[in-house]
């Protein structure tokens, strides 16, 4: 059963044991890491979370090579953090590097804009980057281990009406559908003579924007047709029904893991408070 991440990006979790955990457990674990990130204020606690998340990703059977999809994100964040802290802040500490970029006399004093790198700024940046890494891994874990089917049936078993669960299901179906529509529309523009590779950025922007009109018109047509079909299935968005067919069992392993990660988050919270 494809997970959300595999639907979006082709990355698939392969460990059946992990995948057979209750959906609540699979939701709780990344959630607890995300919550723990909140309390990680030093490098070691942040790095510990990184390792925990990595270990879980390996345990779930998500290929580590899939992290490369986030390399741009992590790289970009790291650069931005460094720029923010070294160019726009003056964090006290032992100065490792200093360079004046702009300097002039302003009305109320000398305006200086400096590149100012101290040991504390580097440490601060490292903590940020580690937290981001832990955060990215927790997001990967969440998406890589939950299937859209589990979300759909999970919402039903929470007693939410059909409207909620079907909306979620259609959201995932819709992603594929509209990517395919967008590509068809783009191709149809090419068939009419548009050469996207040769157009300027502004013209490309205008053309892609042009493509949104048929995309939305198609969305309206599809919505109309799908909703007509749904109307005839004997269910309304407000109706609810007891889930009798898909029941996910809660095992001892689920209980143990939820306890373990609750303890982890509690320890982080305590450490933060102390």
């Amino acid at each position, binding site marked *: 059963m494809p997970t959300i991440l595999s639907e979006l990006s082709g990355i698939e979790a392969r460990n059946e044991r992990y995948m057979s955990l209750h959906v609540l457990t699979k939701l709780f674990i990344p959630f607890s890491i995300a919550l723990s990130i909140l309390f990680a204020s030093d490098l070691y606690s942040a790095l510990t979370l990184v390792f925990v998340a990595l270990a879980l990703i390996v345990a779930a059977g998500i290929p580590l090579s899939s992290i490369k999809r986030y390399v741009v994100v992590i790289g970009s964040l790291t650069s931005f953090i460094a720029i923010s802290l070294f160019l726009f802040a003056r964090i006290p500490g032992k100065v490792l590097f200093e360079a004046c970029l702009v300097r002039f006399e302003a009305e109320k004093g000398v305006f200086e804009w400096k590149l100012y790198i101290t040991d504390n700024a580097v440490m601060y940046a490292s903590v940020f980057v580690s937290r981001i890494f832990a955060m990215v891994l927790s997001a990967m874990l969440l998406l890589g281990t939950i299937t859209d089917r589990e979300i759909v049936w999970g919402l039903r078993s929470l007693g939410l009406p059909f409207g909620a669960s079907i909306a*979620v299901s259609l959201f995932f179906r819709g992603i594929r559908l509209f990517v395919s529509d967008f590509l068809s529309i783009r191709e149809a523009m090419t068939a009419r003579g548009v050469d996207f590779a040769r157009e300027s950025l502004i013209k490309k922007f205008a053309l892609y924007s042009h493509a949104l009109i048929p995309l939305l018109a198609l969305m309206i047509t599809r919505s109309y047709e799908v909703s007509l079909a749904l109307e005839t299935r004997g269910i309304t968005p407000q109706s609810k029904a007891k889930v009798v067919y898909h029941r996910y069992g809660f095992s001892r392993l689920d209980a143990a893991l939820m306890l373990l990660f609750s303890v982890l988050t509690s320890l982080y919270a305590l450490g933060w408070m102390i």
Partner: protein
Amino acid sequence: MSRERKVSWIHVVTFAFATAISYVLGVVSSLIFPVLGAPGVSALYVAAAIYVPLGVWMGMWGALAGYVSCFFLGLYPSGYSVIQSAVWSWADFIEALVPAVLFRLAVKDPDFAVRRPKAAKLMPLLVSLGTALLLVGIVVQVLWGAAYGEPFTTIYVYSVYAGLALSVAGILTGLLVGDAKTWGVYVVSVILASVFSGLWGAGTLTIVNFPPPLPKEAFWPVLVGWVIGDLIVLSTIGTALVVALTELFKRTGLYVEGWWA
């Protein structure tokens, strides 16, 4: 026999599909036009052109579409944790909520017919440029003007006056495009939506979140990039879509006069 006005499948399905489109466009925008260092933040966030008009057309469904699409964008490919995404995504909820509220309170039956095409072409330029100048001026004053005085104060003053003048001109030009009430409310919605969502978005990325993924020093650059980007997208693409598709939404019965139905 009359049709009952309650939430039906057409609302749910349209919301789900619009959210899917918004998500796909959000991913594409943030990859093609990124704001360096702020994943998920795009210099030209085309997805806003979907859910903000959806707020005009379908009220709260547009706001919900903004929230959900941003939530998933936060998870993948931006890599924010589920809590951070859950907090951050209210930015896009607010962005679509603004026009949803303004239209439901002020314009029950919007008429986006364009009677003066030249005004329609000029309006986005004036609004975007004006608001951008205003914002830049304010940022300059906050960051440097208060502490250093001149020349930052002068830059601030000129930017703010020029920005205000252009924004007001943009609003007035907007009134000339067609039905004054519809277009007036729309232009104001675009400006307010961009600013409010920018404040929340930049704020929850840098100042307040669990935890904020970026340092607080990044607030102003993220805010400026966010607001200007949204203004450009909403005043150009968003406008084109409301002009092209409002009648479609009305004639197919998709247009929601209330908040949900």
